[in-house]
């Protein structure tokens, strides 16, 4: 495979993950390779990143794909060709590398680990598994050992000892990353890199489905809340400025013209004071939808300055107000879900979402939260578990509120399948598909007032 073919394949794989690299970028990348040469892999990586990427959010996808298309080596690592370390020896090496904290050594040990313990299946039909490798090697159990080794090293600062534990955890996480990357590379040799690039590289975090996000991705999403809120607020401010231009305020223009002898030299424009709407968030917190609800709660909370009032309600089969908990959630976003479940009464005894009851309870107990200046956001997958959808309550909300939006984290294709009452609700209020952070940001920007 020639270099240009490889580059073209690489760019194609990036595009499949939503990185919009066009022919112009590809030509730049080729020029970069020409200038840099292929001698230093990290420079090649930096050069390609500079010419193909347009934002740091794309970096994780880029790195994983880069490792597939421009691998560090082929087949087993040179050192492991003849000898095989047994498990203990390998764990010793891993511990040493973790103590030293040197990234290159960590990567080498990771490659050796995958080579020794990651193989499954037969010679021609098998593959390489990071999961299996990590199950055998168990790097997290090395923590105590590494800690002891680091403490034994004399001449270190006493104060910073308390940082060791977290630092080793980060190094172990790096090691896991290296194992995953090494396993992907070995698997690519068996199955072809197009296949691996498509299925084994996860997409950028703002395109990850809320419903299928794992813990790490949810944590990353939570970190993205504040920058996202800041971006939305700036976008909003720009829109407001533009909207404020254009309309002449006749009275003030005439008043101003007096200082220039009655000639209106400087026109005065009418300034609109944007009405800050109240916002009410009504969130389904059952099962897999919870991650989506938590993210949206944090986002709306971060945008609280844009609204005159934010109230948040949560339900599973019973509704309770959680505004206070969410406001505190800004300090500890990871614990938000657990705190709501512990402190608010969102479940009775049944534990499955019951839209009928929850909506009835909301209109009954908190009906006064919704007025003509309120925008209501309902978050949920509209899966009623076969119960009554209680359309009357939603209709009542739609009448009372200024606007009602329903954000559904499921694909449109899945609406009204099984126990979902999505289309029934969609007939009453505007329902939007909201599967990932990008869609959510666009929706929130539209909902925000000018």
């Amino acid at each position, binding site marked *: 495979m020639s270099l240009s073919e490889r580059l073209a394949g690489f760019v194609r794989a990036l595009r499949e993950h939503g990185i*919009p690299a*066009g022919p*112009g*970028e590809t*030509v*730049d990348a*080729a*020029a*970069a390779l*020409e*200038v*840099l040469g292929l001698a*230093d892999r*990290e*420079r090649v*990586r*930096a*050069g390609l*990143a*500079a*010419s193909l*990427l*347009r*934002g*740091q959010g794309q*970096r994780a996808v880029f790195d994983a794909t880069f490792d597939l298309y421009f691998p560090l080596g082929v087949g087993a690592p040179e050192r492991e060709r003849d000898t095989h370390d047994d498990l203990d020896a390998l764990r010793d090496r891993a511990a040493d590398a973790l103590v030293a904290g040197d990234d290159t050594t960590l990567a080498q040990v990771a490659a050796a680990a995958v080579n020794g313990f990651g193989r499954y299946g037969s010679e021609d039909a098998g593959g390489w598994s990071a999961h299996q490798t990590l199950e055998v090697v168990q790097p997290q159990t090395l923590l105590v050992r590494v800690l002891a080794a680091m403490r034994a090293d004399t*001449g270190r*600062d*006493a*104060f*910073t000892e*308390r*940082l060791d534990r*977290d*630092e080793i955890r*980060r190094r172990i996480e790096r090691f896991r990353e290296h194992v995953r990357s090494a396993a992907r590379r070995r698997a690519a040799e068996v199955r072809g890199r197009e296949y691996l690039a498509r299925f084994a590289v996860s997409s950028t975090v703002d395109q990850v489905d809320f419903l299928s996000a794992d813990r790490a991705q949810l944590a990353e999403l939570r*970190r993205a809340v504040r*920058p996202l809120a*800041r*971006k939305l607020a*700036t*976008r909003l401010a*720009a829109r407001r400025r533009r909207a404020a231009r254009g309309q002449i305020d006749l009275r003030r223009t005439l008043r101003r013209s007096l200082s220039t002898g009655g000639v209106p030299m400087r026109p005065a424009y009418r300034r609109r004071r944007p009405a800050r709407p109240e916002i009410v968030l009504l969130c389904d917190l059952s099962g897999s939808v919870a991650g989506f609800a938590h993210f949206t709660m944090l986002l709306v909370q971060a945008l609280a300055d844009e609204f005159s009032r934010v109230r948040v309600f949560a339900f599973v089969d019973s509704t309770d107000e959680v505004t206070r908990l969410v406001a505190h959630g800004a*300090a500890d*976003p990871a614990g938000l879900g657990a705190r709501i479940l512990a402190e608010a009464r969102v479940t009775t005894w049944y534990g499955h979402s019951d839209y009928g009851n929850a909506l009835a309870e909301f209109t009954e107990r908190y009906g006064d939260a919704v007025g003509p200046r309120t925008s209501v956001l309902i978050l949920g997958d509209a899966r009623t578990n076969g119960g009554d959808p209680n359309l009357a309550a939603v209709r009542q909300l739609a009448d009372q509120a200024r606007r009602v939006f329903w954000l559904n984290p499921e694909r449109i294709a899945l609406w009204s399948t099984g126990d979902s009452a999505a289309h029934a609700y969609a007939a009453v209020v505007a329902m939007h598909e909201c599967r990932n952070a990008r869609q959510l940001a666009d929706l929130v920007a539209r909902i925000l007032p000018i």
Partner: protein
Amino acid sequence: MVRLGPVTGFFASVDEVSARLAESGYLASNAVATTVFLADRLGKPLLVEGPAGVGKTELAKAVAAVTGARLVRLQCYEGVDESRALYEWNHAKQLLRITAGRDETWEETRTDIFGEEFLLARPLLTAIRGEEPTVLLIDEIDKADVEMEGLLLEVLGDFQVTVPELGTITAARRPFAVLTSNATRELSEALRRRCLFLHLDFPDEHLERRIVATKVPGIEEALVAALVRVIAQLRAMDLRKVPSVAETIDWARTLLALGAGNLSETLVRDSLGVILKHQEDVLKASEKLELDGT
């Protein structure tokens, strides 16, 4: 061979970039040096994005310093426009010229008052017109309005400026252009496509130790290692404002001034205000670092 446009040609190799930047006191990581070299070689503007205080502006200044180029800086702000960024006609002087030449015909006056003499060059035009090597720094482009980006497309794409009355002015010598952004808003695709992208993040511990040692001479190595580790730990926390490189250096200076030989609990607790700027961050960090309550 890929055809390369006119280039700035400041550097001959990536190693030369690192070495010369280091001489001027800017320690660049491998990725930074590579990207600067590419921007120089491919003649493309460099868009540097990253958190506040990692040295985005410093990078442009350092490139200008080591190459002996003139630094032309356009500081963007909300409402910066053509007349502040590109060029402006000197109206007062034009009026004087019209009053001075009363006997001339209108045709003569008109061709004359739209000449080079009455053109006030702003940063972008200055950078394009200059004969000597130039580094053009467009700082905090994300603060400017979207309309401003449209203006930059011609400048950064073709390194030319069109003045309707004069025609198109093309750069005699291509400036080395650096744009910095804090990513407070998304820049347009069109602008990004014209640039090489560099995300400047906090340096790794090894590099940060070297930076502190360079900027704060006389500080003990063990102390630097310890404080850089604390900073790395703080950055891993979910704080409102994580400490930047500038704050690391400030902290190192403070500790040096206090005559500290190593970090101790009291010392960290008392000087945490140097690195953290929000009270809630200080509280959170104290808790995570297991500092005793005050």
